[in-house]
């Protein structure tokens, strides 16, 4: 048992941290205030290799192990939660779905473009009336000769209005999970329309939009896997994605803790720095302990991926615990800042808003608890 990153994982940590500290962190507050997707950093993300994290080099990606990928997302999140969600969802939802379930020819067609940032990826599972209960989705894909015709509305799609490649889960068969199939749809396909762009509490520089399909024709060659396999594929994709959301939560939580430590050392009350008050110290200590535990859970799940071992339960544990621990850490960090924590000028105000999504996206905390409980009950 070795509790340390390998040499190359440390280099990944440092390379991404340096990029994040110089190019992302100083601009995150502006992007948040403007609620604007930062198109200008996308080429830089691509150049560093952040848009093809686990895509093998033969498809133009970085070929990272899962631990390194988690490290990269954590460091981006430390600088900006919004950009971390962009990186995490592009990589571990859309790109991962094609990587895991695409045929060779599909991988050659899409992965290099995604890794080079020529197209951002979006992944469309959720619908206005089917979130946690994704198997109830209603978007139709009806077969007509050698094509499918898609009709329906997808909700809360990250990169919904900026993506070039969409992976869409739609119903080709009857009710329930067995009737669902995955397709790749490209931007510009006639009938594909961006619907409402969402105004969000946090992660305001991440793009979230409705995506509407009106008689969108998709050639059969764009189907991922066989008919009826879509739901199982999506669940497998989400397992990997949850490690990314866990890493994202830890990154935001750590940024909040660092801000709290800094502030506690400089803010004075009753004749001393507030860091001298035990009440403040306990908050800092609790956050430090919980964020460390969260990070270890995230690394353990990623490590299982790299060993080729099952990781469903562990990914859920990591995502659940990390998102709740990071929520508490940002809450405490805000409290340590007193009134200033409630003010836009201080980054903790943004961390507090940004971190909340981690308890909802890619399966709510309730759903994670269901997955963990199911695994435990089945094992005993």
């Amino acid at each position, binding site marked *: 048992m070795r509790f340390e990153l390998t040499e190359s994982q440390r*280099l990944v940590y440092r390379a991404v941290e340096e990029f994040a500290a110089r190019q992302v962190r100083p601009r995150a507050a502006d992007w948040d205030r403007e609620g604007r997707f930062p198109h200008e950093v996308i080429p830089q993300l691509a150049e560093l*290799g952040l848009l093809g994290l686990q895509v093998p080099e033969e498809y133009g990606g970085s070929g*990272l192990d899962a631990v390194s990928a988690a490290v990269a997302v954590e460091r981006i999140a430390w600088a900006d939660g919004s950009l971390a969600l962009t990186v995490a969802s592009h990589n571990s939802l859309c790109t991962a779905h094609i990587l895991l379930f695409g045929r060779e020819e599909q991988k050659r067609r899409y992965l290099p473009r995604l890794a080079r940032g020529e197209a951002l990826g979006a992944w469309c599972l959720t619908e206005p009336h089917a979130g946690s209960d994704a198997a109830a989705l209603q978007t139709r894909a009806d077969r007509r000769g050698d094509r499918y015709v898609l009709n329906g509305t997808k909700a809360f799609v990250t990169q919904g209005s900026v993506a070039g490649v969409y992976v869409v889960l739609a119903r080709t068969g009857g009710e329930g999970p067995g009737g669902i199939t995955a397709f790749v749809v490209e931007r510009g396909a006639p009938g594909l329309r961006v619907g409402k762009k969402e105004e969000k509490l946090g992660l305001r520089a991440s793009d979230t939009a409705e995506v509407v399909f009106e008689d969108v024709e998709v050639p059969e060659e764009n189907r991922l896997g066989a008919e009826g396999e879509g739901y199982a594929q999506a669940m497998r994709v989400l397992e990997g994605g949850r490690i990314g959301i866990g890493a994202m939560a830890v990154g935001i939580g750590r940024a909040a803790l660092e801000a709290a430590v800094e502030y506690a050392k400089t803010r004075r009350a009753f004749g001393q720095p507030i860091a001298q008050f035990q009440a403040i110290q306990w908050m800092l200590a609790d956050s430090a302990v919980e964020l460390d535990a969260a990070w270890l859970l995230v690394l353990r799940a990623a490590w299982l991926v790299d060993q080729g071992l099952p990781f469903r339960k562990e990914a859920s544990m990591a995502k659940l615990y990390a998102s709740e621990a990071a929520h508490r850490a940002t809450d405490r960090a805000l409290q340590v800042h007193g009134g200033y924590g409630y003010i836009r000028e201080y980054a903790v105000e943004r961390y507090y808003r940004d971190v909340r999504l981690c308890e909802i996206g890619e399966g709510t905390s309730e759903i994670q608890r269901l997955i963990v409980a199911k695994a435990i009950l089945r094992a005993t």
Partner: protein
Amino acid sequence: MDVVVCVKQVPDTEQPIRVRADGSGIDEQGLNWILNYYDEHAVEEALRVRERHGGTVTVVCVGPPRATEALRTALAMGADEAVHVWDPALEGADHLGVSRVLAEVVRRMPHDLVLCGRLATDDNASVVGAALAEYLGLAQATAIAKLEIGDGVATVEREVEGGVEVLRVPLPAVFTVERTINEPRYPTLPGIMKAKRKEIRTLSLQDLGLDPAQVGAAAARVRYARFDPPPRREAGRVVTPESPEEGARLIAQFLQDTAKVL
């Protein structure tokens, strides 16, 4: 052009550096070790020479086992090969000892150009590059801010007080580089993964045919007597004037009477 770059691993000075209580050195607990900034520029310059003129870039480091990470960083930036020299006998070697070891490594490989950083940010000595040139019997220029490779000759620029010195130096030569020479590239993630697969050749003093008594601690002509932390900075004095004019007067008074700089 075959370029050899000598690099050192140093503590990251973005973190606080603490001196051991007994003054015997710095406390290495919890330090982050990184590739010396000046050496990053040397690696970058070597990569640019290779891009323009072809050839190879080999990085060489003398240092304990952890120093391979600095070599790995240089490989991730794009260097072709890496050589790591370590021997327990080198613990406590001085700059001249290290220079002699580097000279022996460089001598054994093709080298049209040898680049070093102007200094290492740990001890700021600026000795190794110059001594290396001496031991190799090669021409040298230190702290160069520009490098152009011609036919068997390099044109380099040094920033000197009030101007720029332009030197023409026959190759092979040893140059130490200033940080203004270029903007180093980030190692990319695919670069890091490629570097992970490259082998770092490790050599001992014996492999190099060197006698520990001549290059190791025993031969050191410089020994550290003691390390002291810099004196604590005293808290600043805060004045709360009634008006800007009064503030200016208080500051002027301070500069005149207390600081005695006016």
